[in-house]
């Protein structure tokens, strides 16, 4: 194993199609027009010394180290800023150049501490390398003059330090923050000798706009910006490519290691989802993997009020099997079930649904995608024929209009947000549909052309109004529709949306969005060139979530914005493997690849391969399981990697269901909230401890690679396999690659996927099979997967969750950059520095009416329940709307959310709850009671002597 060293080409690649041939140091090289001499030299195998250039950012030409000579031209141009030209002859190493470079280096070194031996970057410092490369042997100036050697360190960021004494003011960090991340947090203050890097107006990093993405740290050639983990541990000695286990962007990382210890996670340049960029979670927030709260031994108890008893793996597995068998014998085959998670790998998910369908003999399997993107699956399958997004992320680079609906990419999908912002900075227009003024509405160098700040719960009315404008103003792409869609259906749909009551003027009273804004947005979407829709849970988590997904599909089809680069309908998936969890047959009604359980041909194939008869009827969904548990007909559940007691709506109902079961098995890293109600705890492994694959929001299957042994002794797939074997349904796999082989064998869209093909290709987007051996970046190119595109009539049905005198405000929920889902992982990292608690955002007007001041405790009450948290007064939310996150169990925001759900999929209506907000003194009775209960139920008995 070695440390993977990626080549730094010095400047970004040129996208030009025309090629140019030149000679560098006598070597002929052909490169695209617009390429820098520096990059062309690397292509020719020649390294020109450099300091201020790196290929993640545009060249700046300030250090003067990369000078070259060109035959027939005067002077010594900088190779990073000079483009290639046909036939020129370039020299990179002449006496004159050597002299200049030594002089430049001498100046740099004269203002740089010479503590290389004890510097954390020793061995990974470009200044050191360049001193060597130019043959610097002496520094004539001494350290007596003015210098920066005593400048104070900024250690405020939890993950990296800024030591200005080592700064060479190359501005790579500033450019990375601007060009790669798009945050513009850093500037070079002052001029000449006084110039220095600073984060905001004399602020430290933590107090600045910095979002801790790490791009500047990566770009820094010296130890000025460096990871604290490198300072603590030392330089890594080998690296392994793996995939981030946080969000649906699915960034590729190099896990840089010393032995089995992670030194740092560095985004991988070849990662096709992230191209070398990262966010604070994947880059830095992996400390939870070794957190002392990790449970490493299996535990069992008879009653949930008993303390936990640590047992051997054999005993725990045998107990689970005997309990599930006992419960099935007593209450029937269907009284048990299980839940997979979007945090699990594809292989783990596949095994769990196999265990349930084949081992338990029913289809009571569901996944947490139920509560996030199940409407996407239903809606896109119905209209296009495939339950997945239509594009790869890179497609956004060719979008002219970006329409974001109910998504907050800068917080929830930060690396893709950076790519999107880059495109917006270079001219694409933006429409945001969101009840909140999310960051994308206005941030440095990005401003939405239109922000449609609608009332929560009115998406369908708004999208149908957009369609109304497109149809009645003659903006539909008739040629596309005639060719690709069902023309009669389209006409029917066009007549429907053209009805007067769908006009922006008529729907303005429902949505709260001025008609003119809706009209302007519709015109822009329909006529602005390539228009691409990106959406999130603000679309799906509504009683009309599925209808909204179909309404977006209608818009894309009607305007011909589907089936090529730059367009499409794209769900931004929340957790890392939402797409994969859905693909792997986690839903109770379908097998892998979205094939219905009642389809005889598919079922017979699985029956033959698994050698067991399968139930042709759909099983229970998560909310149905909980309802059935409350009613007493559902008695045991196996939950891997999900915390339904915190993440699912109407917590008190979830808790009632869990308390009513006789055997709750939780397989997770920590004693999460659900474990408070569990009888068996099976310690899981983190993504660093196992092999597998994740599938990101663009259908990209990426490898997760084991970099350290499992701390609990068993990888999650091994646990599921052991339970299955103990229950009498044999499973035998030696490695997750064998599970993937089985998936590929049984799933036509995965037929070409194997660990070998993933190793060869890096990653691949399904469908991947004989028809598309290297995968499918863009879907529905010549025809829709279902044949003709299907238009659906989208009648707006108001949610039954209404405001009234008791509950006059609408609560909507979401997430924040530094935390992930229920926060079980990120709360156990330095990320708490940014978000130590959930806050309630409330408009100044509503706050004033209630006598609420910034930071006050307020009680948030709905008909489901109440909780207390502190208020944050902001105009990001419209009057009448309040907003909070669900990352902290102390707040339990889901105590407040209700049982309402999407009509088609039961995806909960998290985004609309009628609430009242009033001043309070602190935590509610429920919170205090819950706190006591969870302290009690977490107790682990001392091991017997």
């Amino acid at each position, binding site marked *: 194993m070695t440390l993977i060293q990626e080549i730094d080409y010095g400047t970004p690649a040129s996208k030009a199609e025309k090629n140019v041939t030149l000679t560098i140091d006598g070597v002929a090289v052909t490169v695209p027009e617009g390429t820098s001499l520096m990059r062309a030299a690397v292509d020719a195998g020649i390294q020109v010394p450099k300091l201020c250039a790196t290929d993640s950012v545009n060249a700046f030409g300030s250090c003067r180290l990369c000078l070259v000579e060109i035959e027939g031209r005067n002077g010594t141009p900088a190779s990073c800023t000079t483009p290639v030209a046909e036939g020129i002859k370039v020299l990179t190493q002449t006496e004159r150049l050597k002299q200049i470079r030594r002089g430049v280096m001498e100046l740099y070194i004269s203002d740089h501490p010479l503590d290389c031996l004890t510097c954390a970057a020793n061995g990974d410092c470009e200044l050191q390398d360049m001193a060597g490369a130019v043959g610097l042997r002496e520094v004539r100036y001494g350290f007596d003059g003015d210098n920066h050697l005593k400048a104070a360190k900024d250690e405020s960021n939890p993950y990296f330090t800024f030591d200005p004494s080592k700064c060479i003011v190359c501005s790579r960090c500033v450019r990375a923050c601007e060009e790669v991340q798009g945050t513009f947090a850093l500037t070079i203050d002052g001029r000449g000798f006084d110039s220095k890097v600073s984060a905001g107006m004399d602020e430290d990093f933590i107090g600045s706009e910095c979002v801790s993405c790490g791009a500047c740290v990566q770009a820094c050639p010296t130890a000025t910006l460096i990871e604290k983990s490198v300072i603590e541990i030392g330089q890594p000695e080998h690296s392994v490519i793996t995939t981030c286990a946080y969000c649906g962007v699915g960034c590729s990382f190099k896990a840089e290691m010393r032995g089995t210890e992670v030194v740092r996670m560095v985004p991988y340049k070849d990662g096709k989802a992230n191209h070398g960029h990262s966010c604070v979670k994947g880059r830095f927030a992996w400390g939870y993997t070794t957190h002392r709260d990790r449970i490493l031994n299996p535990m069992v108890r008879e009653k949930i009020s008993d303390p936990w008893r640590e047992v051997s793996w054999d005993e725990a597995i045998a107990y689970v099997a005997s309990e599930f068998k006992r419960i099935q014998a007593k209450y029937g085959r269907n009284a048990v079930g299980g839940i997979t998670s979007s945090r699990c790998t594809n292989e783990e998910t596949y095994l769990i649904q196999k265990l349930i369908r084949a081992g338990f003999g029913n289809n009571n399997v569901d996944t947490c995608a139920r509560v996030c993107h199940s409407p996407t699956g239903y809606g896109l399958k119905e209209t296009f024929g495939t339950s997945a997004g239509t594009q790869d992320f890179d497609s956004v680079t060719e979008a002219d209009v970006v329409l974001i609906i109910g998504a907050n990419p800068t917080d929830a999908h930060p690396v893709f947000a950076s790519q999107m912002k880059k495109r917006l900075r270079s001219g694409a227009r933006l429409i945001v549909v969101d009840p909140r003024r999310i960051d994308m509405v206005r941030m440095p160098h990005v401003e939405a052309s239109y922000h449609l700040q609608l009332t929560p719960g009115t998406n369908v009315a708004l999208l149908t109004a957009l369609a109304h404008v497109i149809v009645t103003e003659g903006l539909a792409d008739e040629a596309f529709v005639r060719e690709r869609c069902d023309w009669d259906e389209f006409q029917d749909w066009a007549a429907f949306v053209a009805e007067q009551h769908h006009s922006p003027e008529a729907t303005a009273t429902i949505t709260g969005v001025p008609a003119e804004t809706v009209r302007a947005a519709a015109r822009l979407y329909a006529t602005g060139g390539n228009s691409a829709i990106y959406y999130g849970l603000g679309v799906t988590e509504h009683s009309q979530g599925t209808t909204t997904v179909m309404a977006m599909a209608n818009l894309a089809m009607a305007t011909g914005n589907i089936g090529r680069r730059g367009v499409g309908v794209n769900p931004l998936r929340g957790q890392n493997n939402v797409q994969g969890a859905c693909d792997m047959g986690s839903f109770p009604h379908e097998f892998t690849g979205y094939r219905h359980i009642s389809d005889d041909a598919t079922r017979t194939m699985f029956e033959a391969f698994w050698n067991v008869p399968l139930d042709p*009827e759909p099983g229970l969904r998560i909310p*149905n399981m909980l309802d059935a548990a409350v009613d007493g*007909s559902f008695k045991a559940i196996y939950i891997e990697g999900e915390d339904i007691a915190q993440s699912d709506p109407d917590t008190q109902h979830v808790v009632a269901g869990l308390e009513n079961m006789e055997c709750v098995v939780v397989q997770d890293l920590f004693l999460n909230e659900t474990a408070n109600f569990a009888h068996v705890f099976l310690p899981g492994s983190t993504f660093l401890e196992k092999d597998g694959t994740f599938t990101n929001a663009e259908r990209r299957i990426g490898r997760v690679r084991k970099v350290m042994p499992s701390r609990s002794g068993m990888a999650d797939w091994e646990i599921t396999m052991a339970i299955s074997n103990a229950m009498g349904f044999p499973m035998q796999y030696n490695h997750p690659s064998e599970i993937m082989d089985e998936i590929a064998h049984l799933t036509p869209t995965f037929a070409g996927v194997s660990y070998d093909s993933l190793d060869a290709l890096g990653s691949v987007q399904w469908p991947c099979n004989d028809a598309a051996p290297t995968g499918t970046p863009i879907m529905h190119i010549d025809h829709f997967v279902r044949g003709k595109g299907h238009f659906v009539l989208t009648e707006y049905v108001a949610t039954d969750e209404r405001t009234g005198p008791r509950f006059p405000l609408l609560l909507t929920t979401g997430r924040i950059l530094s935390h992930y889902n229920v926060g079980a992982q990120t709360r156990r990292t330095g990320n708490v520095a940014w978000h130590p608690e959930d806050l309630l955002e409330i408009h100044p007007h509503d706050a004033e009416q209630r006598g609420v001041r910034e930071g006050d405790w307020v009680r948030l009450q709905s008909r489901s329940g109440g909780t207390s948290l502190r208020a944050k007064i902001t105009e990001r939310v419209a009057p009448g709307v309040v907003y909070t996150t669900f990352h902290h169990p102390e707040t339990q925001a889901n105590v407040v959310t209700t049982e309402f759900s999407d*009509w*088609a999929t039961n995806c909960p209506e998290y985004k609309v709850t009628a609430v009242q907000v009033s001043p309070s003194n602190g935590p509610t009775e429920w919170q205090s009671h819950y706190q006591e209960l969870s302290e009690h139920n977490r107790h682990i008995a001392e091991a017997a002597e």
Partner: protein
Amino acid sequence: MSPDRLIYMANQIGKYFSSQHRQDPVAGIANHLKKFWDPSMRRTIAAYADQGGAGLDPLVLQAVRTLSVTHL
């Protein structure tokens, strides 16, 4: 499972299919229930419909009745 919740859910499904012009709503509702509802949920709602089905919207009631005859 308590019929109240099932009635609510069935009516929600009914609202969608009733708004689709080109499709028989009764068949649409019945098909949806068959594809996505576990048999015990279908049995409960069918039994409830057999007792009169108060609270179920008319088209939903019709759909549930076809279900009880053909699919259970």
